[in-house]
């Protein structure tokens, strides 16, 4: 594939685009682009809809969707932009959850500080780790990521300060600084939605930056990208690290909300799989697609789990769905939308 196949909206390098196109096509600053405001609008809707009318059920559903969107759009940075499959993306979520829950319950840190520290720690870890395993190319990297999940899970299950195989239970006291459990749940919901909005911004900003262009180039042809001056190992490691930051934070918030964290739930390989399904469903490499795919999957999952006949076949249905997308519609939902309404390419990234 060549640059011709990448539409202008896919490769928004400031200098190149400006040189080739009339002045009105130059990218506006971030705050003047419609897509930015779309993200803000979605974030506000997620936060305010349940608050208006005190709808707890809607809040739980949107919270879960927001967690999924954060995971999916972060995974999209690796999977969609640079074409690297990360089968162990749930590691970030679990590890972030562990660090945050540990800091809150043992060291009595305030939630926000603990979650931020968890995010920074996990993405630093991912950076160091990424510089090592991202020397592996393509399929080999994918194999290594399966191992990462198993290895981290085995490590945490044997790590006594984090409760080993039984995990950590939060006592109700930790919710007191936030004004009791009931109010804490609302605060955590707002925080999760904020992280979700940040994740959409992050993947949008990365996509429209020179860094993102480099990642897309790696996805097309890594050797060619390297020849053209993209420092591929460093780019990949940064992408890996960036895709770790927000999942770790949202993991912290999620497990704080649950009140319990244990290795089986935190490093559930199914979670990684589901995230991949979401990204593929929405459309690889698109910001909107990751969000749509995640929301759609959250709905689907709810239906599957509550329908008696289907509840045992959740994995099977997700698998069939993934297989069908890979074989017949690799563009996902956004691929369909772009083909049907080409103008949408300009509006929805």
């Amino acid at each position, binding site marked *: 594939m060549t640059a011709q196949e990448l539409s202008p909206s896919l490769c928004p390098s400031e200098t190149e685009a400006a040189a080739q196109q009339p002045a009105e096509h130059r990218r506006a600053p971030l705050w003047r682009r419609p897509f930015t405001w779309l993200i803000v609008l979605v974030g506000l809707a997620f936060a305010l809809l349940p608050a208006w009318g005190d709808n707890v059920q809607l809040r739980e559903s949107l919270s879960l969707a927001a967690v999924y969107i954060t995971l999916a759009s972060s995974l999209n940075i690796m999977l969609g932009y640079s074409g690297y499959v990360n089968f162990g993306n749930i590691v970030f979520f679990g590890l972030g959850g562990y660090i945050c829950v540990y800091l809150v319950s043992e060291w009595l840190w305030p939630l926000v500080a603990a979650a931020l520290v968890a995010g920074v720690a996990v993405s630093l870890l991912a950076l160091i780790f990424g510089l090592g395993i991202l020397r592996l190319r393509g399929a080999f990297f994918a194999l290594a990521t399966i191992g990462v999940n198993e290895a981290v899970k085995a490590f945490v299950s044997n790590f006594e300060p984090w409760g080993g195989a039984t995990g950590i239970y939060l006592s109700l006291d930790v919710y007191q600084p936030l004004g009791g459990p009931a109010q804490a749940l609302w605060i955590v919901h707002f925080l999760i939605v904020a992280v979700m909005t940040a994740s959409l911004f992050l993947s949008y900003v990365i996509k429209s930056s020179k860094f993102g262009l480099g990642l897309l180039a790696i996805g097309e042809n890594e050797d060619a990208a390297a020849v053209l001056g993209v420092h591929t190992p460093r780019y990949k490691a940064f992408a890996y690290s960036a895709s770790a930051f927000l999942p770790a934070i949202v993991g912290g918030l999620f497990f704080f909300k649950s009140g319990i964290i244990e290795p089986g739930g935190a490093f559930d390989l199914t979670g990684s799989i589901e995230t991949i399904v979401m990204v593929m469903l929405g459309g690889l490499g698109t910001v909107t697609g990751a969000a749509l795919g995640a929301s759609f999957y959250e709905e689907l999952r709810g239906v599957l789990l509550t329908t008696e006949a289907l509840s045992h076949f959740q*994995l099977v249905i997700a698998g069939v769905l993934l297989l069908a997308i890979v074989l017949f519609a690799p563009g996902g939902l956004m691929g369909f939308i772009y083909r049907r309404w080409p103008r949408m390419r300009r509006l929805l990234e």
Partner: protein
Amino acid sequence: MTGVIASLIDGVLVGAVYGLAAMGLTLIWGVMNVINLTHGAMIVLGMFALYFLASALGLPPYGAVPVSIVIGFVVGVVVYWIAVHRVIGRTHLMALLSTFAMNMVLIGLGTALFSTSPYNVPVALPGITWREYTFTGTHVVAAALALLIAGLLYLLLHRTRIGKAIRAVADNREAAELNGIPTTQVLSFAFGLGVALAAVSGTLIATLFPFNVLSGGAYEVKSFVVTVLGGMGNPAGALMGGVALGLIEGAATPFMPVSWTPVIEFVLFVAVLIMFPRGVFAFTRS
């Protein structure tokens, strides 16, 4: 000291079975550059084949071995036409995702049918005593059968027409096609063969240890480690890699809890890939 040596030898015996499993993975990679992520599910298929043939139908346990080769081959060919055929020649991402999706479907079905409770097929064989060491009979037989099947695979690949065709396709698919080899059929045959190896190794593993629907994952990871040790796409190397992994596990077992095994395997996997990207035993490649 006696304990350590016994553990090492036992590791080698079990390692031969790991090697057999990895041969299936490496064969498929070598022929069509596809990493078969259904590998774990196929190992489980072999395990349950043993369970049903031996416990439900009352066949002798080792009678299940040829049956599971046939079942594995048939399932492999079917999976090839469903999930692999369309992604050959596309990016690695697509092949990884489609075999992964297939794996989810198979494991999901298995979980729904058999739940995840453990199964065990008792195989009564006397232990073999040599000087002061005693080895479990099943381990010795499993290793011997693994070597036998590996030998048969060698004969198939090097002494038969279809084997020659497989090697030709692995070498250069276009050239093979130009020479009148029906490459698509050959690819599906090779995929079936790889899956048959995975299934039969699952059957052998099930004679050694208890298992459940999700056991495949752990053995899949082992197969990957063995594959990179032996060099991707190199069946002979895979057998040696399996023995090497068995030795390492045998050496580690007396000193650390079993739950640490995945950590060791993973570190080994990444270290080998980075330091010896062509495999430690790559020199044996013909």
